[in-house]
């Protein structure tokens, strides 16, 4: 029997060359002697080849014929326009820049390098940039991106719930990929961490939604959790004393304009938004004993109460223990 690569190449050639979709019987006739004569094994071998071609990205079109001599049979062909790489017209410096980008970004897979070969770049780049980045790799991402491009909803399980989301985009932030889109069930914009998606993604029909014209995933959720205010206009500012050891770092994070007093021992008082108490508390505790809330009294009392709760083990988690 012929080498499988030869058979696959011939199958590809036949399907690319034909102007009309072909049934398996005609395909097998054209590829004399390469498929078994018997119906069952022939179908089996062909299905395996079809799957192999699809897996390397060959778009095989199928249709079930009605109303002629082939009625009921499945017909196959490959649309050359979909098969061939679109002309990118990259200038040499653009090709090189893309190549450096692929070399600069480290992932677990070879896919980027393979893609560069296809578009005509070379595989390795010799000059190492002074800076590089690790790009987390998730199998869901290409599917989501294609769904974004096709305006097709995706359905998946997330924290035990089945969600159907109109995907608007994906965003890499803080080392994680997020899917941002419109959750149909909740009828609201939602963000999902891609690596928390459970099981397979199902992709629905294309062109079934419109993405907001001004959508940018980067502004889809606030960068600073302290700024996630409640739906109120009263903004609360708290005064926090930061010890000398962390003063410089805090000033860098918040900006010099938030420093309201500098003490002789090197510590500083800063003014910090505390409208969202949860986020504020989380930030203050992140500085452990290098930060003390000075005021206002209700914010200080809130943090003290929280710490009291956390410092008595019998209280911590008592609520959740009840759910056992």
């Amino acid at each position, binding site marked *: 029997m012929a080498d499988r690569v030869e058979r696959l190449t011939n199958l590809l050639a036949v399907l690319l060359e034909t102007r009309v979709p072909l049934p398996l019987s005609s395909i097998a006739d054209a590829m004399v002697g390469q498929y078994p004569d018997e119906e069952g094994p022939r179908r089996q071998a062909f299905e395996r080849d079809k799957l192999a071609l699809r897996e390397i990205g060959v778009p095989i079109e199928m249709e079930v014929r009605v109303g002629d001599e082939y009625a009921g049979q499945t017909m196959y062909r490959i649309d050359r326009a979909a098969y061939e790489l679109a002309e990118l017209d990259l200038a040499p410096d653009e090709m090189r820049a893309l190549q450096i980008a692929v070399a600069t970004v480290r992932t677990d897979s070879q896919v980027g390098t393979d*893609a560069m070969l296809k578009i005509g770049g070379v595989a390795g780049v010799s000059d190492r940039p002074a800076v590089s980045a690790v790009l987390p790799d998730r199998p869901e991402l290409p599917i989501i991106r294609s769904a974004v491009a096709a305006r097709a909803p995706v359905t998946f399980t997330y924290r035990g719930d089945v969600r159907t989301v109109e995907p608007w*985009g994906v965003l890499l932030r803080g080392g994680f990929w997020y899917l941002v889109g419109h959750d149909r069930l909740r009828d609201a914009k939602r963000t999902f961490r891609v690596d928390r998606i459970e099981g397979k993604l199902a992709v629905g029909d294309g062109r079934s939604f419109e993405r907001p014209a001004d959508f940018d995933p980067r502004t889809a959720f606030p960068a600073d959790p302290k700024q996630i205010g409640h739906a109120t206009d009263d903004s609360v500012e708290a005064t926090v004393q930061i010890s000398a050891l962390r003063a410089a770092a805090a000033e860098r994070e918040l900006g010099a304009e938030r420093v309201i007093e500098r003490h002789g021992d090197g510590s500083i008082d800063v003014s910090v938004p505390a409208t969202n108490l949860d986020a504020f508390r989380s930030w203050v505790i992140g500085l452990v*004993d290098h930060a003390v809330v000075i005021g206002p009294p209700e914010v200080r009392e809130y943090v*003290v109460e929280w710490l009291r709760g956390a410092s008595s*083990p019998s209280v911590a988690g008592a609520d959740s223990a009840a759910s056992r």
Partner: protein
Amino acid sequence: MSGRSSAGPRNAQDRLRRLLVMLPWLMEAGEVPLADVAERFGMTEAQVTKDLELVAMCGLPPYVDEMIDVFVDDGLVFVGVPRLFTRPLALSAPEGFALLAAARLAMELPGADPDGPLARGLAKLTAALGEAGIETGDDSTTGVAVDLHRPEWTDALIDAVASGSEVMVDYFSPSRDEVSQRRMVPRHVFTDAGNWYLLADDERSGQRRTFRIDRMERVETTGLAHPLDPNVQAPDAFFSDVDLPRATIRLLPRAQWIIDRYPIDSVEPVLVRRRPASSGAVDVTLPIASTRWFDRLLVRLGPDAEVLAPSGAARGGVELAQRILANYD
């Protein structure tokens, strides 16, 4: 998938995938030394010859009336390809994504020129991979965006890497809770899992070490320059947390934001008589990257979290809360 490894068996799919890239390239290039083909496609010369000779036998009248001509002679390859295979196969969805994501990420790195060749290449790529037949207006992101926030000093350190300049760094060490002065020669800057790191030759330890840039309080060049090291590589698997100890904690809904923020091994809804508890609590198992971090996390979560295992893991959080509380007396 790799195709890089020249040894070992190659399956039919990978061989065909390579051929469909190789044939159009050879067609375009005319005569190419066999060694160059092998190097470019990460194969041995024998593998290249074998696969090319194989496709030379393909072609099927009457459907396909042109044969693929292949000559391998004197270490030179010449290929004549029927019009069938003159263009490479279109980028697959994963390949398209990989290129877009790499280019977008590189655009966010320090020093990227918003009007430079990468930006222009990315725009062409975006257009080619774009949204078939869908009006996109002036949207240029194709739904893939990258947001890299970088700490102060990052750009200065990248300059120091490029020039081999020695720097003096005030470095905050959370494990000792102190700031120390360290002299070092920056070698490489990289970002991984949301943080920025400097790989540098550290004078104090005499070793090449990795430092977190957001823990640097001050960076100053000393005026000394060292020879560049051409062989610097960023650490491959920087985060391998398989060896870290694990903890299991029960989280009420208000504490469940940590599931989206930190690496978590598993999330299990708490069941009461085989149904999810009305409290909405879940049990999560997570690596303890450092006990300091874990203690701090427990204090941040407060009464919304309960440590289930290992026993005694809750103690550090309690002690930390007491220590902070002492400041309020």
